[in-house]
C-alpha cells in the first residue's frame, strides 16, 4: 500500500532532556524518523527541549521548536505550526504521555490533528495496567496476578490475594520510577504511597513478584496489512526483578527452545494486534518460569524504546526508520532493507554473532544511593559488545564500560558463606564481578544459581571464563615466550583483552600485545548484515573478533579516512553532547570528501547508526581495540577532541604508534591538563588564576589551606566513592573534612584552590585554526563558581558582565587559543570577581556546551572545527578573527538531575557534577527563556501559593530582595527561624514554620500536605545539610519546584517579575529563525 497522501505536514515529539530511563536512544529514533519522513516529501516539524541532540539540528527538520515538553507549551506550538498529524512513538514515554494529554484536552480534535503510528486507545490499553491485563486475558495470555489500586486501602485489600514479596509499580512513569519490591507490611505501605504520588494518574499496580523468573523481550514491527515481524529477541541475564535497563542483556535469546520462542513470537504479535498497534514498532516483555516454562506477559511499549534501539544496533535493522515508514502507510514488503538492498524489510533478521549489553552505573556520584538494583532503573548509560559468541561479547562489553576494569574485576567477598549468600542474593550493580569471584573461591554453579537466579547457562559461561583466567594466571612465573599458543588463541577467542591477560600474568600490556602479534593473532573484522551472510552485503557496519576472517574492503581508502573516536558509555559528565559533536565531525568529514570512520560502543547514540559514517566499528574504545582497527585502516588522522574524556585517554597511544592526531596536538592538551606546567603558561601570558596549593598529607593540609586562604575548594587526586570535592569556608569545615578524609580513603596530593566566593562563572567556547580565533559564545552562569559548570544554569548572551570584562574574556581566550596552538574547539572556564577575570580551567577540545551554543547562534561549531582540522581556515569558512558570535535571542540552558531515582540522595549542588542532561529555553527575553528552561527541566512553577524559604547565613542578605519580589507577585512567604527574622527585619510579612528538629507541625509536614508550592533552601556545612535533608527529599518526592542556590532563586524571581509585566509567554520561536 502506498504512503498516505491525506497528510502533508507531520510533527514529531522528542523525549526531552536525558534522564535515567530516557537517554540518547530517542535521539537516534527521532533523527531516523525525521529523515524517513523528509525523504518521503513530508514537511516535518519537531518539538524537543534538549539541545544536545542531532534531531534538533536546524537543518534536519523543517521547523524545530525548543520548548518545554509540557502540554501547555505544545498546545501553543500546535496553534502556530498546525501539522496534519503527530508521530508520538519516537520520543519515549514523554511523547506518548503528551499525545494522550493533548487528546484528553481536546487539542487534537480542535485543531484537526491526527495521531499516526499509534492511537490514544492503544496507548491507554498498553499503559493502563488494568486495561492491559484485561486485553491479555481476552487473547488467552496470562499476566502476573495483580491489582490496580488508587489508594492505600485498596492496596491493602489486594494484599490478601498475593503473598509477600510483592511488586509495586506506578502507572505512566519513566524507567519504572515509583516502584519496588515490598517484603513486609511496612515496606509495602511506603512503596504504595510513593507510587501513588509519582504516578501522574495516581495509580499503582500491586503485583505478584516474579523474582527468579527469566526475562525476555521481543521487538515487533507491524504494518497496516497486519504483517508483523520480530526484529530481535533479547534475553536478560539478570532475572526478573531488575529493571531491564539495569540488566545485562543478550541478543538473540539464548535459553529458549524453538517451540518456546515461537510461542513468544505468536504471543507478541497477537498482543500488538489486540492493543491495536497497527503501524509501528513495539517492545513486548515476557517472564518465563525456568522450572515449568510457564509464560507471563509483563508489559508492552507501543513505541520505539531503549530496547528497540539496542535491537537496531544489534541486528542492523533500523527499527525507528521502518516504524516511521509503516506509520505513514507503507507495508513492510514495500520497504527496502538498507543493508542487503535486495531484500525487503518484511523479514526477520538472523544474526551469526552474539550481542551483550551491560549497563553503566555511576554510583560514585551519589554516595548515599543504594546500589541494590530493582524495578526502578538506576544506570546512567550502557555499552554493547559484539562477539562471535557469548563470552567474547560479554568480555568486550565489560571492557567498554570505562570503569578501569579490563574484564572480571577482583572484588572482595565476605568471609562467611552466609554473608556471600546475602551479598549475591542482592542484585548489586557489579554482581557479575561478584559471581566471577565466587567461582574463583570455589562456589558451585548450583549454589550461585540458587542465590542469584541467573540461568545456569550464563553461569557456566562465566565459570568457563574464570577457569580460563585461572589457567592463564598459573603461568605468571613463566617467560611469555613459553606461553602456550593454543591457550593464547583460546583466551583471545573467548574475549580476554591483552590488558586482562597481562594482569593475570602480572606483566605489562604491551608485552602481551607483542607476544600476540608475534604469533600472528590479530583482530579481524566482520560485518553486521541482518542476514547471517545469506546475502551479499557491503554494509560498512563492522565489529572486531579474534575468530574469523577479515571482511573489510579498504582498497583505495588508505590515507583518505578520518577516524573519529566516540564518547563511550553515557555517564555523569560524559553525555550525549559528545556524541552530538562526533556526529557533526563525521558529517563534516564526509562533506569534505573524506571517508569518515566512527568507533563507538554505546548503542544509545546517533553515531552508531550504520549510515551516519562511511564505516562504523562497534567496538570498545580501548588501546587494543582501537589499534586493532587503525592497523589496517591507516587513516590520514584520528580525531580525539569530540568524544569528551574517552578519546583523550587514547591520544598518547596514538602518538606512541605514530598515528597522526588531527587538530590541537596531544602535547598541548596535556599541557592544559598539567597543573604546574599550565600555571607557568598562565603566568607567561600575564593572566590570573585563583591561588592554589598542593598538600601531600593530612598533616600539612591546614598549613597549605592557610597559605591560600578561606574559602577553598579541595579535591583529592583519587577517592573511592566520590563526593570528596568540597568547598570549605572555615576552620570548622576543614577539621570536619580532614576527620572524614580517613573514611573517604582518599589519595594525596590534595589540590587546594582558593574559592572565589560571589564570583560569576563564565564558560567560553571558541574555535581556532591556529592563527585566528572565533568566539562561539560567552556563557554566563546563573549559579556561582563552586557549582560544577555542568550542573549550573547558564545563558547567552551574557547580561551582567561589563563591556570591559567581556573584552577581557575575549582577549584572554584569543591569547590562550594561540598559545596552545588550538586547531578546532576550545573551552575555557572563567570566574569573574569584582571585575577581575580568573582562569579556572582550559580544555582544548569540544565541551558539553557546544551543542547548546551551536543551536543558540545558528552555527554548527563542531562541524566547523572538523573542517578546520582538515585544513580549512576560519576565513575560508567565513569567520573572522576575534569575532564573537551574535544571537538574536536569549538562550538559557538548565541542568536536569536524577535525584528522584535515588532515594536518600541530597539535591544540594556542589563542585561534583550530578546532572544527567539539559534543556534549552529560547526567547526574545531572558525571563521567558529562563522560565521555559525551568519548565523544561521539570520545575512545575506555581502561579501562586506559599513559598518556603530557608537559607544559610551567607545567603541571608540576598534573599530579602527575592522574597520581596515573590511577595509582590502574590506569593506568600513561609520561613523558619533565622531566615524569618531577617525577612521580618526587612519589613516583610512572613509566616513562621517549625524546623523539623523543633517538632511537629513542621515544614516537612506542610510540604507533605501539599501546602507548599515552591521551596528555596540553601545550606552551608555538612551539619546544616544533614538537618535539612528531609525538607529537600520531601520536596522532591512531592514534585515541588525547588532552588538550592540563592542565585537560582534570584533568577527565578527576576524572570517571574518580568514575565508578569509583559505578555512574553505566548511567543513561539523556531530554531530556523536563527540564521547567521
Amino acid at each position: 500500500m502506498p504512503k498516505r497522501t491525506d497528510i502533508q505536514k507531520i510533527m514529531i515529539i522528542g523525549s526531552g532532556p536525558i534522564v535515567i530511563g530516557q537517554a540518547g536512544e530517542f535521539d537516534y529514533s527521532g533523527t531516523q524518523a525525521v529523515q524517513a519522513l523528509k525523504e518521503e516529501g513530508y514537511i516535518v516539524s519537531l518539538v524537543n527541549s534538549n539541545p544536545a541532540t542531532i534531531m534538533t539540528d536546524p537543518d534536519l527538520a523543517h521547523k524545530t521548536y525548543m520548548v518545554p515538553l509540557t502540554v501547555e507549551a505544545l498546545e501553543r506550538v500546535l496553534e502556530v505550526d498546525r501539522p496534519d498529524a503527530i508521530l508520538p512513538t519516537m520520543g519515549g514515554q514523554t511523547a506518548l504521555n503528551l499525545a494522550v494529554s493533548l487528546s484528553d484536552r481536546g487539542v487534537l480534535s480542535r485543531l484537526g490533528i491526527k495521531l499516526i503510528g499509534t492511537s490514544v486507545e492503544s496507548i491507554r490499553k498498553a499503559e493502563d495496567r488494568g486495561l492491559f491485563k484485561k486485553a491479555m486475558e481476552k487473547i488467552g495470555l496470562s499476566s502476573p496476578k495483580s491489582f490496580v489500586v488508587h489508594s492505600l486501602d485498596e492496596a491493602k485489600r489486594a494484599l490478601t490475594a498475593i503473598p509477600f514479596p510483592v511488586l509495586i509499580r506506578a502507572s505512566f512513569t519513566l524507567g519504572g520510577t515509583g516502584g519496588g519490591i515490598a517484603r513486609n507490611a511496612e515496606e509495602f505501605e511506603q512503596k504504595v504511597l510513593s507510587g501513588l504520588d509519582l504516578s501522574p494518574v495516581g495509580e499503582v499496580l500491586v503485583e505478584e513478584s516474579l523474582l527468579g523468573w527469566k526475562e525476555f523481550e521481543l521487538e515487533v514491527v507491524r504494518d497496516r496489512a497486519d504483517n508483523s515481524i520480530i526484529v530481535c529477541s533479547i534475553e536478560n541475564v539478570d532475572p526478573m526483578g531488575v529493571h531491564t535497563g539495569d540488566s545485562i542483556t543478550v541478543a538473540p535469546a539464548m535459553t529458549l527452545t524453538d517451540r518456546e520462542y515461537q510461542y513468544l513470537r505468536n504471543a507478541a504479535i497477537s498482543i500488538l494486534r489486540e492493543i491495536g498497534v497497527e503501524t509501528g514498532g513495539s517492545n513486548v516483555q515476557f517472564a518465563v518460569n525456568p522450572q515449568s516454562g510457564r509464560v507471563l506477559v509483563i508489559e508492552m511499549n507501543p513505541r520505539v524504546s531503549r530496547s528497540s534501539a539496542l535491537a537496531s544496533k544489534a541486528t542492523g535493522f533500523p527499527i525507528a526508520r521502518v516504524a516511521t515508514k509503516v506509520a505513514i502507510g507503507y507495508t513492510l514488503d514495500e520497504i527496502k532493507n538498507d543493508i542487503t538492498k535486495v531484500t525487503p524489510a518484511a523479514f526477520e533478521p538472523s544474526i551469526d554473532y552474539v550481542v551483550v549489553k551491560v549497563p553503566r552505573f555511576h554510583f560514585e556520584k551519589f554516595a548515599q544511593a543504594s546500589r541494590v538494583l530493582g524495578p526502578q532503573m538506576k544506570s546512567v548509560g550502557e555499552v554493547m559488545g559484539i562477539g562471535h559468541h557469548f563470552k567474547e561479547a560479554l568480555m568486550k562489553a565489560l571492557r567498554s564500560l570505562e570503569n578501569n576494569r579490563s574484564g572480571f574485576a577482583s572484588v572482595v567477598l565476605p568471609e562467611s558463606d552466609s554473608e556471600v549468600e546475602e551479598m549475591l542474593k542482592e542484585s548489586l550493580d557489579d554482581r557479575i564481578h561478584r559471581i566471577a569471584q565466587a567461582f574463583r573461591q570455589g562456589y558451585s554453579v548450583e549454589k550461585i544459581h540458587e542465590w542469584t537466579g541467573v540461568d545456569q547457562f550464563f553461569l557456566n559461561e562465566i565459570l568457563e571464563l574464570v577457569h580460563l583466567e585461572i589457567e592463564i594466571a598459573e603461568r605468571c612465573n613463566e617467560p611469555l615466550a613459553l606461553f602456550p599458543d593454543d591457550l593464547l588463541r583460546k583466551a583471545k577467542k573467548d574475549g580476554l583483552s591483552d590488558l586482562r591477560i597481562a594482569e593475570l600474568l602480572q606483566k605489562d600490556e604491551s608485552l602481551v600485545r607483542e607476544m600476540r602479534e608475534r604469533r600472528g593473532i590479530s583482530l579481524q573484522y566482520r560485518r553486521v548484515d541482518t542476514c547471517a551472510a545469506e546475502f551479499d552485503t557491503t554494509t560498512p557496519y563492522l565489529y572486531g573478533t579474534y575468530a574469523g576472517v577479515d571482511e573489510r574492503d579498504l582498497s583505495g581508502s588508505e590515507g583518505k579516512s578520518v577516524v573519529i573516536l566516540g564518547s563511550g558509555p553515557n555517564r555523569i559528565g560524559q553525555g550525549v553532547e559528545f556524541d552530538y559533536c562526533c556526529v557533526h565531525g563525521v558529517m563534516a568529514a564526509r562533506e569534505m570528501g573524506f571517508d569518515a570512520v566512527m568507533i563507538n560502543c554505546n548503542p544509545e547514540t546517533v553515531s552508531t547508526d550504520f549510515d551516519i559514517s562511511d564505516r562504523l566499528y562497534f567496538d570498545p574504545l580501548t588501546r587494543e581495540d582501537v589499534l586493532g582497527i587503525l592497523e589496517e585502516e591507516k587513516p590520514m588522522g584520528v580525531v580525539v577532541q569530540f568524544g569528551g574524556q574517552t578519546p583523550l585517554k587514547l591520544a598518547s597511544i596514538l602518538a606512541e604508534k605514530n598515528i597522526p592526531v588531527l587538530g590541537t596536538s596531544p602535547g598541548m592538551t596535556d599541557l592544559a591538563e598539567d597543573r604546574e606546567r599550565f600555571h607557568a603558561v598562565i603566568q607567561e601570558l600575564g593572566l590570573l588564576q585563583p591561588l592554589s596549593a598542593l598538600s601531600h598529607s593530612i598533616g600539612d593540609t591546614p598549613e597549605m589551606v592557610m597559605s591560600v586562604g578561606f574559602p577553598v575548594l579541595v579535591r583529592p587526586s583519587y577517592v573511592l566513592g566520590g563526593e570528596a570535592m568540597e568547598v570549605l569556608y572555615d576552620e570548622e569545615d576543614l577539621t570536619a573534612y580532614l576527620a572524614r578524609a580517613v573514611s573517604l580513603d582518599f589519595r594525596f596530593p590534595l589540590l587546594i584552590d582558593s574559592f572565589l566566593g560571589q564570583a560569576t562563572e563564565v564558560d567560553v567556547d571558541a574555535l581556532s585554526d591556529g592563527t585566528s580565533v572565533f568566539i562561539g559564545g560567552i556563557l554566563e552562569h546563573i549559579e556561582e563558581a563552586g557549582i560544577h559548570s555542568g550542573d549550573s544554569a547558564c545563558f547567552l548572551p551574557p547580561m551582567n558582565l561589563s563591556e570591559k570584562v567581556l573584552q577581557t574574556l575575549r582577549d584572554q581566550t584569543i591569547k590562550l587559543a594561540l598559545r596552545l596552538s588550538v586547531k578546532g574547539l576550545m573551552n575555557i572556564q572563567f570566574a569573574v570577581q569584582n571585575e577581575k577575570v580568573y582562569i579556572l580551567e582550559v580544555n582544548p577540545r569540544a565541551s558539553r556546551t557546544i551543542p547548546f551554543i551551536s543551536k543558540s547562534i545558528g552555527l554548527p561549531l563542531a562541524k566547523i572545527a572538523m573542517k578546520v582540522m582538515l585544513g580549512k581556515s576560519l576565513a575560508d569558512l567565513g569567520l573572522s578573527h576575534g569575532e564573537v558570535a551574535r544571537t538574536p535571542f536569549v538562550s538559557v540552558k538548565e541542568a536536569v538531575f536524577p535525584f528522584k531515582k535515588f532515594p536518600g540522595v541530597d539535591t544540594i549542588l556542589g563542585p561534583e557534577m550530578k546532572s544527567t542532561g539539559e534543556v534549552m529555553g529560547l526567547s526574545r527575553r531572558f525571563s521567558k527563556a529562563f522560565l521555559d528552561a525551568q519548565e523544561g527541566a521539570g520545575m512545575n512553577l506555581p502561579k501562586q501559593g506559599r513559598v518556603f524559604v530557608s537559607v544559610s547565613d551567607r545567603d541571608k542578605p540576598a534573599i530579602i530582595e527575592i522574597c520581596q519580589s515573590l511577595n509582590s507577585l502574590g506569593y506568600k512567604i513561609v520561613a523558619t527561624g533565622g531566615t524569618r527574622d531577617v525577612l521580618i527585619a526587612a519589613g516583610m510579612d512572613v509566616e513562621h514554620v517549625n524546623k523539623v528538629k523543633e517538632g511537629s507541625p513542621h515544614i516537612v509536614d506542610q510540604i507533605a500536605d501539599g501546602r507548599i508550592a515552591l521551596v528555596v533552601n540553601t545550606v552551608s556545612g555538612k551539619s546544616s545539610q544533614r538537618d535539612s535533608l528531609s525538607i529537600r527529599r520531601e520536596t522532591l518526592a512531592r514534585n515541588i519546584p525547588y532552588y538550592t542556590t540563592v542565585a537560582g532563586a534570584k533568577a527565578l524571581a527576576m524572570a517571574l517579575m518580568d514575565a508578569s509585566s509583559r505578555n512574553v509567554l505566548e511567543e513561539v520561536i523556531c530554531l530556523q529563525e536563527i540564521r547567521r
Partner: protein
Amino acid sequence: MKSFAPIVLVLEDGTIFSGQSVGASGTVSGEVVFNTAMSGYQEVLTDPSYAGQIVVMTSPMIGNTGINEVDAESSKVQLSGFLTTAMSYKPSHHQCTKTLPDYLVEQGIISAQEIDTRSLTRHLRKKGVLRGILTTEMDKPSRLIERARRVPSIESLDLVRQGLPMHETLKRSLTSGLEVVLIDFGAKGSIKKCLEDLGVRVRVVPPDTKAQSILDDRPDGVVLSNGPGDPARLTSIIGEVRGLLGRLPILGICLGHQLLSLAVGAKTYKLPFGHHGVNHPILDLFSGKVWITSQNHNYAVREDSLPDGCEPLYRSLYDGSLEGIRFSRSPILSVQFHPEAAPGPTDAFPIFSEFLEMMKR
C-alpha cells in the same frame, strides 16, 4: 583446557575448514548447506529433508537447551554432518534430557565446533551448494580434496526410499471425521501433528505407494510430504502423483510441492545455495499478505513452466522464486515452504486449515 580431536570439512573446490570434533569419529560426505535459524537445532537435526547433507548452523551458540523428548521431527538424526561455531556442554532447560554433544555421539553423527561458520557460509553463498567430506581421519589435503570431488551428487542418490518409516503415533480424538493419507517421502513429524491437531486422522504410507491403492481406501485427502534430494529423479513417484490429480484434495509441502508440479508438467531447477532458514518472507500474490516462513529446499519450481490451470500463489520476497501454486480447477494446495514450521514461525499454519476446508467441501 579440554582437548578435542581435529576435524576438517573439505569441499570439492579445494577449500578446507578445520575445527574440533565433537560427535562421532570417521568420515561422512554430502552436500554442504547452511541454515540461518537461530533456534530449533534439534528439529533441524531430525528433519528427514536433510538426509544426505552436511548442515552448517550460522547461529553461533548451538545446544544451549540440550536435547529434549518433545522437539524431534523424526526418531533419529537425519543429516549427515553438523557444523557449528560453538556447542554447549552444559545446557540449561527444564525439558533437557541430554546434552547435544552426547546426543551426536550417541547418534553417530560426525560433528564439529570451532568452525568459522561465517566464512564457510559466505563461501557457499558465493560458490553455491558444494559437495564435501567431513572427516576426523586426517590425510594429505590433496587426497581429501580428491575424495570430496568424488562425492556423488545428491541428484544421484535415492534418499527418499532410504528413510525410516514414520512411527504411527498415539491416536487422538480426531474430531473432524476426516482422514488423510500422508505419503512419507521423509516427512517431518510436525506435519502429521499439525493435521492431527485439527482433528484429522492421518495414515502414513511409504513413498512408493500406488495411487490406486490410496484411492481404493477413499481417504478425504492426500498430503505429499517434504523430503530430501532432487525431485526430478523420482519419476515413478511422479507418475503415481499424476494418478491422484483431480481425484481428491491434495496438499503438497516442499518436496511434495515439487512432485505435484512435476506431475502437472512443470519443471524444477536447483537454486544456487537453497533456502534454509526460518526468516523467509513470502508474499501472497492475491491478498498482499506477507508470511515469515520456515524453509528448507535446494530445488524450486520454474514459474514460467507452469501449465494452464496453475498459477503462482506465493513468491519469495528474497529472490522472487516460486513458493506456492494454486490450481483453478482442482482442490490442490501446493507450497514450497513449511507450514508446519518446527523450527520457525507458525505464520503459515492456516495452510492446514485451508486444506481442511478443501476436504470438507
